[in-house]
């Protein structure tokens, strides 16, 4: 049997879904976390039914008439797929609005079970509900639930009610469908009656001791966190804390320990392969697979700490307040305050970040957000940042911080350019967002989310990254005649042959060697590959513990092997961070933009940005340190000038379009 989970945004549908299926889908304390339907099987111990119960988690909706695209998924599903039972999750503290949607669901002729969720908060809010009377008035079972609670949270009772409701004839206490709906006005008149009907029920079943319209503690907290002047520094401080814990304190500490284990494994495997194995196979297994994958996996602790902290942040209700604070600034650059949420999520991983943009109603704002979100350095780019700041800048914390600020600066400039190119600089859009209650973030759920991310990361390292490293190692070992390349003749290898033409383009950026070009190319498959490929092409296995490396072969070995100046290293970092993200993220961008022209423009824009940023960094850095421009200054300058010229031309064209529109509307 099939059961659909429906309800208002942020009523706890996915939390309930996770609780009854044991899955770990993304949850967060703001409206619009779920943007796609997800299926799962209800745990057997929660019900007596012989056949399995499939439950479908749907994005939140306020009514059957959709406003944003993810809301339409919900109404389409319950109308077309005819589930056996609908579970309507209702925020117990907000019946007056939630039951509007309930009455619409009751009209579909499908049995409905109402789950009064967050019922643990009723007492705190001074609300007493008469559940029996509510069930009688609605004509369907009503069960109190606490989706975040452990045992005794009403889940068994809910599933019993669902099994019992199957096949039952559902009658609607308020039937709007039977009335004449000739036009918009008539429809609205019916819906007004619907709200009046809901109000009547709520007046009967709800007893309130505290008025919810007055000022509460929430408002006092809001006054500080969303203060016009304090709001922004507080946000900066929160994000800085997240990154400094994950990247300079706890993360690297754990990574050191972890890398020690990987090193022991390498030594153990080396001993095992000592005799009777061909040196080529040995190199592929040891340097290609264990070395390359190990270099990437070594950064796992950093990423886990980052995801843990982001999960806490998403759970406490702060995200919507950041949107409130940022709206003022983002409006000025043609985005919505809501655009900040995809960007914060994007610091973990760009894919869910890009998908989170779906709740933005305005099409251009949504597409621009999708285009700019990957500029936030994501978890997979962390290893690249950590590696370069460790090797070239003596673990300076400013390198990581600088990358985030450059990312933010590019987002601001990018948004300004896009709004002008599209000719919509005078178009205004409205901002409306429901503010959820603050709550204490759950350590348990953050841990669950962290381990789920860690698992995904290990799977990726064991599949795509392992494969890429093996291929890179093989391509590096053999030349075009499939002979093993001799020592000192590495430039004749297949890998060098493929990467060298690209390396030519990179000369003005300061890193025109085939090794670095190869790493940048594999970076498009997955950003973790940059570190993996560098480990393979330079035969370095331990990137994190540079001190240990120093003991082996001199203080600046890694830097020397790569042959990069500090300016070129920083430029390489910029190039990897600000060119298009990995293939998976590009796929997500394609899905959310729904327009090939936008996708192509976004990729071109990202590629241009990476190139221009790297050029500026390398050339100005070289000029400052040596007093002369770096190699390939002139050809690079021509390319950069062409890029900037094209943008300026497009902006001018867009501005003319905007001016024309203004004339038309006046």
């Amino acid at each position, binding site marked *: 049997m099939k059961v659909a989970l429906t309800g208002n945004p942020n009523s706890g549908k996915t939390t309930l879904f996770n609780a009854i299926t044991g899955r770990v889908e993304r949850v967060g304390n703001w409206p619009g976390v779920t943007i796609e339907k997800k299926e799962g099987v209800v745990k057997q111990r929660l019900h007596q039914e012989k056949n399995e119960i499939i439950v479908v988690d749907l994005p939140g909706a306020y009514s059957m008439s959709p*406003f944003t695209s993810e809301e339409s998924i919900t109404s389409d599903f319950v109308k077309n797929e005819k589930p056996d039972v609908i579970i309507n999750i209702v925020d117990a503290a907000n019946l007056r609005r939630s039951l509007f949607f309930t009455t619409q669901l009751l009209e579909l002729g499908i049995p409905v079970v109402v789950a009064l969720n967050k019922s643990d908060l009723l007492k705190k809010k001074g609300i007493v509900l008469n559940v029996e009377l509510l069930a009688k008035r609605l004509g369907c079972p009503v069960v109190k639930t606490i989706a975040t609670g452990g045992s005794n949270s009403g889940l068994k009772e809910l599933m019993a009610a669902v099994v019992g409701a199957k096949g039952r004839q559902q009658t609607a206490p308020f039937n709007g469908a039977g009335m004449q709906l000739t036009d918009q006005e008539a429809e609205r008149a019916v819906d007004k009656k619907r709200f009046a009907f809901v109000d009547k029920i709520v007046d009967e079943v709800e007893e309130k001791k505290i008025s919810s*319209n007055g000022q509460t503690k929430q408002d006092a907290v809001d006054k500080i966190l969303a203060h016009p002047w304090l709001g922004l520094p507080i946000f900066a401080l929160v994000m800085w804390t997240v990154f400094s814990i994950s990247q300079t304190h706890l993360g690297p500490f754990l990574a050191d320990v972890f890398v020690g284990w990987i090193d022991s494994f390498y030594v153990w495997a080396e001993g095992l392969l000592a005799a009777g194995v061909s040196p080529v196979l040995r190199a592929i297994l040891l340097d290609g697979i264990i070395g390359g994958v190990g270099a990437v996996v070594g950064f796992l602790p950093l990423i886990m700490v980052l995801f843990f902290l982001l999960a806490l942040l998403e759970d406490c209700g702060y995200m919507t307040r950041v949107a409130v604070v940022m709206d003022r600034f983002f409006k000025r650059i043609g985005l919505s305050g809501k655009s900040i949420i995809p960007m914060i999520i994007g610091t973990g991983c760009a894919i869910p970040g890009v998908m989170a943009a779906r709740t933005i109603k305005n099409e251009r704002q949504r597409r621009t957000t999708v285009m700019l979100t990957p500029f936030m350095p994501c978890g997979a780019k962390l290893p690249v940042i950590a590696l370069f700041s460790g090797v070239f800048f003596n673990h300076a914390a400013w390198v990581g911080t600088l990358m985030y600020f450059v990312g933010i600066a590019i987002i601001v400039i990018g948004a300004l350019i896009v709004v002008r190119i599209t000719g919509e600089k005078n178009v205004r859009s409205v901002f409306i967002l429901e503010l959820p209650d603050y709550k204490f973030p759950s350590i348990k759920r953050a841990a669950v989310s962290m381990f789920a991310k860690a698992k995904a990361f290990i799977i990726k390292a064991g599949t795509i990254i392992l494969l890429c490293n093996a291929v890179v190692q093989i391509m590096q070992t053999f030349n075009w005649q499939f002979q093993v390349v001799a020592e000192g003749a590495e430039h004749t290898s297949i890998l060098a042959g493929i990467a060298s033409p690209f390396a030519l383009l990179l000369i003005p950026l300061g890193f025109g060697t085939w090794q670095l070009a190869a790493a940048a190319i594999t970076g498009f498959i997955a950003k973790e590959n940059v570190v993996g490929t560098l480990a393979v092409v330079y035969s370095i296995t331990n990137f994190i513990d540079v001190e240990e490396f120093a003991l082996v072969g001199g203080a600046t070995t890694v830097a020397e092997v790569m042959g990069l100046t500090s300016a070129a290293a920083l430029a390489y970092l910029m190039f990897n961070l600000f060119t298009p993200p990995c293939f998976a993220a590009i796929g997500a961008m394609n899905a959310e933009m729904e327009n090939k022209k936008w996708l192509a423009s976004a990729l071109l824009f990202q590629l241009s940005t990476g190139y221009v940023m790297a050029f500026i960094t390398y050339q100005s850095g070289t000029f400052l340190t040596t007093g002369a421009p770096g190699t390939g200054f002139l050809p690079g300058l021509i390319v950069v000038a062409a890029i900037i010229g094209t943008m300026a031309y497009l902006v001018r064209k867009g501005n003319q379009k905007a001016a024309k529109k203004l004339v038309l509307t006046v």
Partner: protein
Amino acid sequence: MKRNEKAAASLAEVQLNREYVIHEVRTNDEELKNFLFTLGCYEGEKVTLLSVLSGNYIISVKDARYCVDKELAEAIIV
């Protein structure tokens, strides 16, 4: 409508923490109007302005709180 009542004000101009009755939602965007309707924000319903944060207006409608921007607050006439 009574003629001598004081001039209608938008939500952007009202006092904090006082319950008002929505008189009109003034927008050409039918879709937005419908959306506000499903939240219970339409003429005849009660609304309270809770605070003004960073240029945005925090309003309470039907026991839920929303953040709306100045433009939208100005479209809601009480």
